[in-house]
């Protein structure tokens, strides 16, 4: 195999040092977007090139890696990144949140509380929270440096004016340690409270936009809101149909063309471990496995392990 031609975790050591310097700067200034010389990766932009580079720079041979995409361990993006690091770094991988030391994620924070021994790496498409209101990069940088964040509230104002409440449901802007306004990547706002005071180190990598930012452990993160329209972490008002969990973030799955639907935990590891403990939801008894539902959700119906 040609895999041995690669350095450990694909990137060369100088590149890793450069990324680590950016990460250290990001940790020193929580929420500040540090520019870095993003490398071309063997996967398309939008597939987590930023997160992959941050993971590669932090990975050691002893690490146990978990990769999730929308909470699931077995969707395309997660599978391909996990395989990438298995081949180029030879590290151990796991689906269990508790067993992992490095977790790369897209769009979710695991339901299970993280620990001080873990690093959570986010894939970020657009790191600039002010981008859609102010297209000029020179101006947004100035607004960050001078702490001019009135514009961020204009976005929330527009939400309330149009929809009657703050309709922003993902990539909900937060303020870090009372200083920088940050885009927490497109995680649902349900996950926003988990950003704050987390024991784990949280790193954010945007490959195309060439930015890295970080939340050191136990950083205070506040979701922006209005006094009379306070922030609420929302989720579908149901219990998981497979494991019966009432406090987890749910995906809605359309079952048929007659209005049938079910709600399942988006965190597949959380759901599977609860079912292993004997928790059973409304539809948990029949032939559905969370894996099959996740696959059909992605439009890859009937895989090799199909049970029909």
């Amino acid at each position, binding site marked *: 195999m040609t895999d041995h031609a690669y350095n450990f975790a694909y990137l060369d050591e100088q590149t890793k040092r450069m990324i680590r310097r950016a990460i250290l700067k990001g940790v020193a200034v929580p929420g500040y977007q540090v520019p870095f010389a993003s490398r071309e990766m063997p996967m398309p932009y939008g597939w987590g090139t930023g997160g992959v580079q941050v993971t590669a720079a932090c990975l050691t041979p002893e690490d146990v890696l978990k990769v999730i995409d929308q909470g699931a361990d077995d969707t395309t993006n997660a599978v391909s990144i996990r395989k990438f690091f298995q081949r180029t770094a030879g590290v151990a991988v796991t689906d269990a949140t508790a067993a992992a030391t490095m977790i790369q994620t897209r769009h979710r924070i695991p339901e299970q509380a993280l620990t001080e021994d873990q690093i959570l790496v986010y894939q970020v498409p657009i790191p600039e929270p002010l981008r859609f209101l102010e297209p000029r990069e020179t101006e947004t940088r100035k607004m960050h440096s001078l702490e001019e964040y009135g514009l961020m509230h204009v976005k929330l*104002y527009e939400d309330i004016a149009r929809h009657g409440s703050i309709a922003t449901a993902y990539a909900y802007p937060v303020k870090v340690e009372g200083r920088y306004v940050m885009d927490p990547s497109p995680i649902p706002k349900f996950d926003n409270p988990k950003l704050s005071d987390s024991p784990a180190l949280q790193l954010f990598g945007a490959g195309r936009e060439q930015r890295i930012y970080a939340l050191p452990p136990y950083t205070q993160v506040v979701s922006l809101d209005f006094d*009379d329209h306070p922030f609420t972490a929302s989720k579908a008002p149901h219990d998981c149909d497979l494991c019966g969990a009432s406090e987890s973030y749910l995906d809605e799955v359309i079952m048929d063309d007659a209005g049938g639907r079910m709600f399942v935990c988006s965190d597949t590891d959380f759901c599977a471990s609860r079912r292993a403990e004997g928790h059973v939801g409304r539809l948990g008894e029949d032939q559905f496995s969370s894996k099959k539902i996740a696959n059909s959700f992605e439009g890859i119906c009937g895989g090799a392990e199909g049970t029909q």
Partner: protein
Amino acid sequence: MSRMETLTTPLLQVEHLTKRYGTRIGCADVSFDLWPGEVLGIVGESGSGKSTLLSCLAGHLTPDAGRVIFDTRDGPRDVLAMGEPERRRLSRSDWAFVHQNPRDGLRMGVTAGGNVGERLMAVGARHYGDIRAKATDWLGRVEIAAERIDDRPSAFSGGMQQRLQIARNLVTGPRLVFMDEPTGGLDVSVQARLLDLLRGLVREMGLSAIIVTHDLAVVRLLADRLMVMKGGHVVESGLTDQVLDDPQHAYTQLLVSSVLQV
């Protein structure tokens, strides 16, 4: 006592302000005082340096020489010696800038209410109901119907856009307003209404204003004092009626005699 003080300190003192573009002169050696509640008109033909002067005063351009001393809430300060954060804070709270083209001064993708509310949120307002009530109030004051509050400026006519821009600028109660051709590009009846509105607001709020225009009718109606510029220099200044009715400088005489009579 405090009233005496405000009457004895000019709001804005400009001393020997000069801006060059390479070897060409933008404006040269301009000095004047602006007193609280006073409206100063700056007239002149295209290229006479009036917009350069206004941009230098408002901090959009950096002049090559001179001083601009503004009577801030903490006493007179040289604006040009201030750091950028402080100057930008000043331009959000105490100053306002009305652009000739409302598209330059408005966020076209944001509703009218959001446009008016932006300055409030920029200075720390965090109560949606209050922001909205104030925006509604200001839309009323510039004669925009309250039910248009959730429409975007792109759905407004040119005159409405300009009035919205004025509301957006005046909502935080600034003390000094810079206006660059506020009536340019509007038809005469809309112009007349806008001027009426502006005159009312300036008097009612006790604003000081610097209005740059080439339209002598605008300054006749709004300005207390007038400065005539040509080739970057101030060629004549004085009370508006005095300058317009008894022009001394040859260029001013030409300017006044060029006005078409209906």
